[in-house]
């Protein structure tokens, strides 16, 4: 256990806890956009920045990546932080003006509009990398990644057309905070739409009731991974005994 101070509150936390976790455990709000319990922290959005003071030296760190330390003094809401966070939110608003999650954060942080120019009003991706992390860490497939440098950065499958590693599970669409990745089942096809790629997968039909109930590739993957008999997935869950 280490003892530290967050916003004047003395707090005890387990070693290996991040500042963000410690703060949240004590109901201290820190805004985040790229954190999700399912995956490891990454530090993409920088919204979670806080001020830490150690041996009388102050600096700004991303609280989702910084671990608690004995005697650390942390501030989550100084003027300097508000200024920088406001700037980040303005940049995000200009990048993704239609992203609900961004709008909500902006509202919560008191930012009404952005002074920056909107380039593509339909861009929904904030480049948080939650989708690529869930695909790598939880699904274990690494079918997608962030590609290109700088302003061209985006989420994509290799060459924008190689979906070999993708099992169509939809975890990316599910975890995406801004609906930049969409999933739709149309008839016998699952369609996953990313900012610049569109993937289609065949769904398996239940011989008994006729519904298309799961992507064939995902079932193959589960059969292989769990080493179970393919028979298990002959029927859809509803028609199974």
């Amino acid at each position, binding site marked *: 256990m280490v003892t530290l101070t967050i916003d004047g509150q003395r707090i005890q936390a387990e070693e290996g806890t991040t500042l963000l976790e410690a703060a949240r455990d004590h109901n201290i709000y820190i805004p985040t956009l790229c954190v999700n319990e399912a995956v490891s922290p990454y530090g993409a959005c920088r919204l979670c920045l806080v001020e830490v003071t150690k041996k009388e030296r102050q600096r700004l760190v991303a609280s989702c990546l910084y671990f608690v330390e004995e005697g650390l003094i942390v501030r989550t809401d100084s003027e300097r932080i508000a200024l920088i966070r406001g700037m980040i939110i303005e940049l995000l608003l200009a990048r993704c003006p239609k992203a609900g999650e961004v709008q909500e954060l902006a509202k919560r942080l008191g930012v009404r509009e952005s002074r920056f120019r909107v380039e593509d009003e339909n861009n929904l991706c904030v480049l948080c990398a939650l989708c*690529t992390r869930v695909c*790598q860490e939880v699904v274990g*497939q*690494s*079918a*997608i*990644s*962030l*590609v*290109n*440098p700088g302003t061209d950065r985006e989420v*994509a*499958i*290799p*060459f924008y057309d*190689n979906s*070999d*590693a993708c099992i169509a599970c939809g975890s990316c669409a599910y975890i995406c905070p801004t609906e930049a990745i969409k999933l739709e089942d149309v008839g016998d096809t699952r369609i996953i739409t990313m900012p610049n790629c569109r993937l289609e997968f065949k769904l398996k039909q239940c011989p008994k009731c006729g519904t298309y109930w799961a992507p064939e590739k995902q079932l193959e993957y589960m059969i292989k991974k769990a080493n179970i008999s393919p028979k298990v997935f002959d029927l859809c869950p509803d028609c199974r005994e």
Partner: protein
Amino acid sequence: MTTEVREIEDSVGAVLARYQRDEGFLVSILQDVQTKLNYLPREALLKVSQGMEVPLSRVYSVATFFKAFSLKPRGRHLLHVCMGTACHVRGAVRVLDRIEQELGIGSGETTRDLEYTLETVNCVGACALGPVVVVDGEYAGQMTSDKVKHLLESFD
């Protein structure tokens, strides 16, 4: 398998043999492959991914991240037109325009006969010589649009 693909795979195989299977070497490996093949063909990236047991998405991510890597074939001659501030104010734009006209390609493109690849760069550190065009690593300074034709002919 076509001979071309076989050649690519052999080249990649030779490069991979010199490295441990450690993702940390990815950039060096891709550099070596590009030195051999002049660019990074799709088959090469697939082979690197298989050989290193690194997901293709990661290899692709690295290959697209660095400007030094090219996923498209590059010309035998590499033209870099400096667009740094000093060159810019001395007329680099006109020089670039003329080169684009002469070669019939835009910046970032390669002529169909695979002779030239044209790229712009931001300052090559030879501001006093500006406008500068670097051809295959050799600096040609005080370039003007009128001198472009001559420059290109000297590399034919």
